[in-house]
């Protein structure tokens, strides 16, 4: 019910938020508009090379995926391989400085719901907490009240990552001193808890302090997503939710065919 109230009064606040974010958007626009010809050419060049590289990797990915499906069907385990993605932009406004939250420019009208995971090009950013009409508030993984189930990409060790409240850092609170985890390990979502899709990068282990006097190791990890910089965010749509028709053209599917291994 409180969320209903929030989304109703969000309509009052939305114009103010839009005005407040205008200066920074304007400076961005000016920057884009007055790019020199040469720098545009350079940028284009970089993108072209990057595109080529990514396409080459994608070729490999397709064959690997096919192989993965084959192997999984042999093992008789099922797994959804498709996630629908919706793109939204962040509205640059300052919120409570002691929380890690952002406002995005898509709301319930675009089918956004509470608990929906958001990510950027580099990893998981957080999840939606207050879906409004025209805009929504999302909590970042670094917020001190946020926790996310992860696993170590190297050996599958499962744990939970907690936010610390500082800009990019997360911590693992409950791994014993002898747990197999090293600096540089990539932590990916484990899909446990059913909220975040499995297999997206979350953080990289940055510092480990093993104090024999303490029951647990102190592990600090750095978020993979560019939490404070990303302007465009991706929203993962749960596959059993319907997307409103008017937004359908904005949706892109990472995979066209919804492959399920178990047939």
């Amino acid at each position, binding site marked *: 019910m409180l969320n209903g*109230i929030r989304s109703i*009064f969000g309509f009052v*606040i939305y114009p103010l938020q839009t*005005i*407040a974010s205008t*200066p920074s958007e304007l400076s961005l626009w000016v920057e884009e508009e007055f790019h020199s010809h040469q720098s545009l050419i350079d940028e284009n060049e970089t993108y072209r090379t990057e595109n080529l590289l990514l396409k080459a990797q994608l070729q490999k990915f397709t064959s690997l995926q096919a192989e993965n499906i084959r192997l999984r069907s042999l093992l008789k385990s099922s797994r959804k391989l498709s996630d629908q993605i919706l793109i939204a932009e962040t509205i640059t406004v*300052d919120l409570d400085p*002691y929380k890690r939250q952002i406002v995005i420019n898509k709301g319930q009208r675009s089918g956004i719901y509470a608990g929906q995971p958001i990510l950027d090009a580099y990893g998981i950013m957080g999840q939606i907490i207050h879906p409004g009409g025209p805009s929504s508030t999302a909590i970042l993984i670094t917020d001190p009240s946020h926790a996310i189930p992860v696993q170590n990409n190297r050996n599958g060790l499962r744990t939970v990552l907690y936010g610390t409240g500082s800009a990019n850092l997360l911590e693992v609170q409950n791994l014993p001193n002898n747990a197999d985890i090293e600096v540089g390990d990539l932590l990916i979502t484990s899909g446990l808890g059913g909220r975040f899709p499995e297999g997206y990068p979350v953080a990289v282990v940055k510092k480990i302090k093993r104090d024999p006097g303490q029951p647990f190791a102190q592990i600090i990890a750095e978020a993979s997503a560019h939490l404070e910089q990303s302007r465009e965010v991706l929203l993962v749509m749960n596959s059993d939710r319907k997307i409103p028709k008017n937004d359908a053209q904005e949706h892109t599917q990472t995979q066209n065919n919804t492959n399920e291994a178990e047939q």
Partner: protein
Amino acid sequence: MSNKPAYHGGIVILISFAIAFILTMLPLSDNIKIYRPEWLTLVLIYWCVALPHRIGVFSGWCVGFLFDIHSGSLLGQHALTLAIIAYLSYKLHARIRLYPLFQQSFIILLLVALSQMLILWINGIAGETYGDWSYWIPSLTSMLIWPWLFYLMRNIRRLYGIN
């Protein structure tokens, strides 16, 4: 003169609150952010002191409520805080008006610090973290900005004949 004095200039009051909102939301870099005065509290105190018969606890509650909606904080925490601040400035309005600006600033410091303390208490109960001493800087900057804000608001009020 009729029994019911015609109030006017309500739109100016609304716009002043809207501007205070925008100043509060304006994205700033992390270094400057901690010095941001509590614009909403200041504007609310000004109107409570200048027009105690029009702006009071209810207006304070509404402004705080909208701020809660915006900032994603616990629904009602700023509403409660600003309602209390509005009540106090209503009680003190006759005195505050008589004080010289310098002395007014100290009252403002106390009121803004009180509002911050209430927010801190509520956050503490809700189990949220507290930063460091820089949390209290907005009280000081609010105190320093008050004389200028007061002059500006008084000129605006006289210009539009709001009473």
